[in-house]
């Protein structure tokens, strides 16, 4: 028993030293960017200490035996001590292990609860996850959608609902699962097709640090998964956010008015084109796919290199929407754009969209 106490003492010291190295020198936790990651931090620190201490105790006990109880050589035919066990010792470590896990399970449940604290009037934003981009719909602010990034005020809890676009029944649903993760925020949530509810598929975050962050897709979603990360999460001061919100609403109003006159723009917005493509007339700034401002140049290039059989620009745009892999713009990869628009959009919608893009965003 004295030996066990020595193992525990030595292991504890060694474990604490190791933890201190990892926590303070290696510094292996991301920057705290939210109340959630602040809540997580003490739990992370505590579990680091406890893990290293357990690891070190095992290591010390094992190392001692390996050093002390080695056989003399091949001719050493001795056997060890024929003990079959020790009930008290076995019960003690079972009890100790049980205590450790109950402690962390309780603490984990508490932190989870704290992380999901929110009020009924918190700002709700629906995150639309596409292959391969995110769009943000400001439900509490009139429902406008931004494809150029997420703008949130510091110090306010945001409720994020994750959704993937749904297609009409009977058509091929090609949308897949994506994940939403901002490492500094300490929260992550998948957008799983069909999982939409008040609390299911929802995450809560209260950003505490102003700055620009990167969002990453964390669920393998196909060819474009590697590119599906965007440094366009902006945490603004309340004043800056208010200013942005006023402009955003005005812009949204302008786009809505235009869309009412321009069916092509309405399709452009509802199909989420702007999530991946920049198109100045539609005020979109996506960068996953080629800019649609240059679509006529792309057509010329495709024509010059005989990579398209489309007879004219309209035909080329239609081909690129219905069969995106037919021609891949220079600097971009195939299989990134979904091939489902031919079935998810109606013929009228496609015609409107093609016309809109072909005319550079002018007219119906």
């Amino acid at each position: 028993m004295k030996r066990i106490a020595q193992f525990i003492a030595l292991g504890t010291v060694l474990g604490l030293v190791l933890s201190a190295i990892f926590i303070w020198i290696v510094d292996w936790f991301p920057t705290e960017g939210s109340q959630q990651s602040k809540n997580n931090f003490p739990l992370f620190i505590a579990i680091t200490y406890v893990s290293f201490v357990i690891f070190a105790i095992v290591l010390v006990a094992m190392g001692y035996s390996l050093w002390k109880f080695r056989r003399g050589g091949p001719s050493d035919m001795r056997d060890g001590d024929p003990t079959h066990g020790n009930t008290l010792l076995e019960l003690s470590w079972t009890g100790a292990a049980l205590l450790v896990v109950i402690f962390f399970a309780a603490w984990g449940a508490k932190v989870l609860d704290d992380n999901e604290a929110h009020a009924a009037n918190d700002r709700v934003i629906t995150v639309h996850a596409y292959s391969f981009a995110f769009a943000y719909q400001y439900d509490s602010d009139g429902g406008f959608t931004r494809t150029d990034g997420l703008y949130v005020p510091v110090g306010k809890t945001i409720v994020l609902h994750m959704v993937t676009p749904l297609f009409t029944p009977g058509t091929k649903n090609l949308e897949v699962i994506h994940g939403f993760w901002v490492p500094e925020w300490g929260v992550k949530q998948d957008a799983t097709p069909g999982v939409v509810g008040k609390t299911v598929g929802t995450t809560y975050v209260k950003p505490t640090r102003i700055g620009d962050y990167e969002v990453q897709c964390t669920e393998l979603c196909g060819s474009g998964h590697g590119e599906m990360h965007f440094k366009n999460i902006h945490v603004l001061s309340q004043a800056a956010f208010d200013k942005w919100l006023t402009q955003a609403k005005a812009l949204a109003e302008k786009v809505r008015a235009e869309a009412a006159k321009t069916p092509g723009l309405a399709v452009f917005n509802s199909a989420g084109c702007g999530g991946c493509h920049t198109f100045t007339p539609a005020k979109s700034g996506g960068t996953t796919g080629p800019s649609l401002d240059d679509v006529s140049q792309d057509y010329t290039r495709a024509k010059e290199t005989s990579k398209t059989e489309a007879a004219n620009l309209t035909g080329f745009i239609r081909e690129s929407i219905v069969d995106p892999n037919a021609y891949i713009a220079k600097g971009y990869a195939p299989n990134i754009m979904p091939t489902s628009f031919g079935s998810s959009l109606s013929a009228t919608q496609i015609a409107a969209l093609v016309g809109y893009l072909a005319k550079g965003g002018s007219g119906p």
Partner: protein
Amino acid sequence: MSVVTSPPSTHTPAYGHTGGGSVWTRPGWWRALLWTILAAALAIAVPALVRVIVGWPWWQYEVMSTCLMIATPLGFLSGIGCFDYWGKYIVGSPLPEGHADHGAYSWRDYFKVNTDHKVIGIQYLVTTFVFFLIGGMLAEAFRAQLASPSNTYFTHDAYNGLISTHASIMIFLFIIPAFAGIANFVVPLMLGAEDMAFPRLNALSFWMLPTAGLIMVASLIWGGFNTGWTGYATLSTHDPTDQGTFFNMGVQFAGTSSILTAVNFIVTILTMRAPGMTLSRMPLLVWANLTTSALVVLGTPFIAASQFMVMFDRVMHTKFFNVADGGSTIMYQHIFWFYSHPAVYIMMLPGFGIISEVISVMARKPIFGYRALAFSTVSIGVLGFSVWAHHMFVAGLQPWLRVPMMVTTMLIAVPTGIKIFSWVATLYNGVINLATPMLWAMGFLFTFVIGGLSGIWLAVLPIDIQVSDTYFVVAHIHYVLFGGSVFTIFAGLYFWFPKITGKMYNEKLGKWHFWLTFISFNATFFPQHYLGMLGMRRRVWTYDERFADWNLFISMMAFVLGAATLIFVYNAIISWWRGEPAPDNPWRALTIEWQVSSPPPIFNFDGAPRVVGGPYNYGQPGAKHVVFEEAPVTAAHH
């Protein structure tokens, strides 16, 4: 290579070994080739005919590839001779002598359908190591890509193909069947049984494995299926590169193989123990395989179902996972993980069994807390079915389900902890022989404690939410499946190498293999915890600039890890070929397999074993686990 497992006996093989008729009609590779080709032709012709009759285009990729992957393996299995005995029995043809396919009399017998559990064990181990090397090379390929964030050695799809086939091959064609191989060889001997309960079923289980493996590897020709080894719907029903069937059908054949083996183990262990082998005298490896087999039988049908549903959605346009038509995407994850979490224990419990054997023998001490170890094995098996949804904490799970799943997950740490502490306590006051198998067992303790502790981190909800789908998880699974399972496989292989081959392995090369692997393994995977925590997600071909230095280091260490494995391959081949002949019991162990010759006689025992004591009574002078009584039991069966 000398692989004859015993001196020639009076028993003359009649069927399968020398069978009459032309090479095209008797079981074997020529007939297998012929029947595979015929099956492939039928798999194209029948659907093509039906399609032409109903007025559809004769060729449809999904349909044809599915029919091919169902028919050709069955053609091969029939051709090689897996069903001959049963077929003759059913139609009433004269049956060959019952043991005609038993035992290896020449190296050629290892390439035939053989019913001897020892031959099957060797067939399993050699086959799984071939797949281990293939899976390892895939890993080296994508580590080359990851050496720098701007490398472009592979297209995005090819990269996703590499990671998916790597994981699938390592899990379904190396770890799970490698344990089945070790258990096939060792468990019947340990029980004092002449063979497995169903030797022909055992042969069929084995031959399904290379079949499953070839299906998965074949997909690499077209770039590899690329949905990850988890094959989540709807990515797998959408299947952007049209390779999903390779994964679906590969899993079906590997899964069927494991279910059949598990049934065989359960029956063998429960009904074929030698007289005196009570449950509480069973070696812990036997307990481990009994529990594992129960997990396989209960769990594997779930992954089979999940893969069939995905395949049906794609090939027959069913709507299991199509939300727009009333399906459910998250259902896939429930079904998949209901098998695939217990699968973690399928991949770990047999290893625990191996470690218990090695540590007790090498420390010359009774295993500390036999009953607690056996009970903890069973309780891990039971608890293992109550934790699957912890893989889905960020998936959009019902919120109330999360805390209960966290608690059950954490409770598994208790029996696991009991095991670790018991092994460490077994060392104390022992007389430790730090030969290669023991080195691997000690290396396993070191790495598995890390893997187990990071498992507790992952169970705690807020931590899981931060690190799931990141390199932290990649690090954890490799600490558990490589530092855990693979280390125990190596411990077991070195430990039983003398028994299996009749030759001693080279101790010096064994130690080089261990130390190089141990160091490069930790250098490869430990930093991944840190990368994942900071923001490096998994399954990406590129990453943030700030992770570049660590990734370069990890890639270099991964190459060392690959090179270290070649030392093992060299050692195994050279020692098997011309190593020192092994004594019957080089480790002075008490369990039954060590009381017979190395390699064991073709029918295992020259006398009838009777168990008279516990398996680990080291330190008690004169203690015996088994005695042999006069009459050779096998003779009665001829």
